[in-house]
């Protein structure tokens, strides 16, 4: 917290915030906030704006948020063109106003991608990600009492790699930052998380093919190796997961192509 003699610094800000109703075209609305404490988070600043709007009897801005501690993946704002704002490796809720200048104009937009339609203002529908997870982001196990953890040994480097991929909070910043609206970083993280662990082997190929198909059907774009997703990911997931996704996909496609039908071919002996 930036403080001088116990007195907190404040910023006067101009905000350009996206206003949109579902299915209708949107536009920016300009608002001024005269005294934003530098210790406020970006979402707290948005709360201040909404409280002012309520006091004025106006409609508030809708935006997604939940845990406000950087792990739930709900907050989703493109701030001055950057998903989650100007500081790499943090979510919007963990971004503090001390990173902005007094008198600055801040442009706040929703995630922009065809697969993420705007619900209202800054809130977008990210159920395309849920569909990708439903198509293969799981392992099939008997539920019931928890199995003995040491029954399946996992080498430490593999466990670390899986945990790195599992850091993905599914916020969608990769899609929003990608100039192709591609979800490859998200899908790559989810596939890697499960495909490298022993528990994920049984459904490895099926998972890879199904999740890629769901991703394509949802209208996400294709990776052309810009690297913007890695640079904007609040969890700093790397392009490694995309390379591995491509490798696993190629492997699964080749195996599916030459898979045994279990029957002799017609006319064969």
């Amino acid at each position, binding site marked *: 917290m930036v403080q001088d003699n116990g007195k907190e610094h404040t910023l006067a800000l101009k905000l350009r915030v996206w206003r949109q109703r579902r299915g209708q075209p949107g536009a*920016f609305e300009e608002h001024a906030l005269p005294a934003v404490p530098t210790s406020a988070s970006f979402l707290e600043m948005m709360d201040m704006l909404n409280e002012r709007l309520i006091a004025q009897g106006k409609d508030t801005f809708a935006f997604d948020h939940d845990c406000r501690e950087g792990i739930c993946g709900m907050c989703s704002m*493109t701030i*001055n*063109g*950057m998903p989650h704002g100007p500081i*790499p490796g943090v979510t919007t809720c963990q971004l503090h106003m001390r990173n902005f200048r007094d008198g600055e104009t801040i*442009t706040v*937009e929703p995630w*922009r*991608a*065809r*697969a993420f339609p705007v619900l209202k203002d800054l809130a977008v529908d990210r159920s395309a990600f849920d569909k990708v997870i439903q198509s293969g982001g799981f392992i099939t196990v008997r539920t019931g009492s928890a199995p003995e953890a040491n029954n399946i040994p996992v080498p430490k480097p593999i466990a670390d790699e899986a945990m790195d991929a599992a850091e993905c909070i599914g916020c969608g910043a990769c899609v*929003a*930052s*990608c*100039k*192709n*609206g*591609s979800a490859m970083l998200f899908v790559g993280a989810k596939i890697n998380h499960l495909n490298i662990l022993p528990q994920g082997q049984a459904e490895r190929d099926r998972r890879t093919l199904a999740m890629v198909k769901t991703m394509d059907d949802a*209208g*996400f*774009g*294709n*990776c*052309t*190796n*810009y*690297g*913007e997703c*890695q*640079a*904007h990911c609040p969890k700093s997931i*790397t*392009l*490694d997961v*995309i*390379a*591995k*996704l*491509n*490798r*696993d996909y*190629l492997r699964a496609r080749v195996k599916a192509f030459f898979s045994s039908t279990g029957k002799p071919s017609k006319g064969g002996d």
Partner: protein
Amino acid sequence: MALSGLVLAGFVLGHMTGNLLMFKGPDAINAYAHWLHANPGLLWGARVVLILSTIAHIWTGILLTLENRASRDGGPAVDATRRASLSSRTMPYSGIVILAFLVFHLLHFTFRKVALGGVEFGDNVHKMVIAGFAQPAVAVFYIVSMVLLCLHLSHGISSVFQTLGLRNERWRSRLDGVACLYAWIVALGFISIPLAVLTGCLK
């Protein structure tokens, strides 16, 4: 995209290497051209593979670009780029210029229909190339196109590794370096010929 690109990237290196025979004198380059035409199986085999790769590369490139534009849905009103390289952001444009160059180049030196003043050169490839590049506008167009090819290759070749899943954080910068080096070798090799003709080093 990646596989057809790999074929084409391999071709430009081979083509460039052959072209450097220009510096060895008229006999070397003319003998090389004669040898190519004396092996129609090899020549046409290579040509068919190249034509198919070019068509596949253009077709997948168009599909990729259109799909990606649609997925982006216009993008944010304020667009910030944190790390995407110039070459990665200009792939469709460098590609279009290279295609225009390819058409001109084929009409120029393969079909010999344009920018040669109607002179017949027959088997004297050396003389044809010198005459072709004696016009500064033509030589400059070749040089500019090769700079764009360099840009295109530097992103394209590093992307091939990513598409085939043969890359990680440790190898990314090294492979980017390999791609950049490859692109510069190809481009400078090609550029050396029109430049040598323009400056009078090659007569």
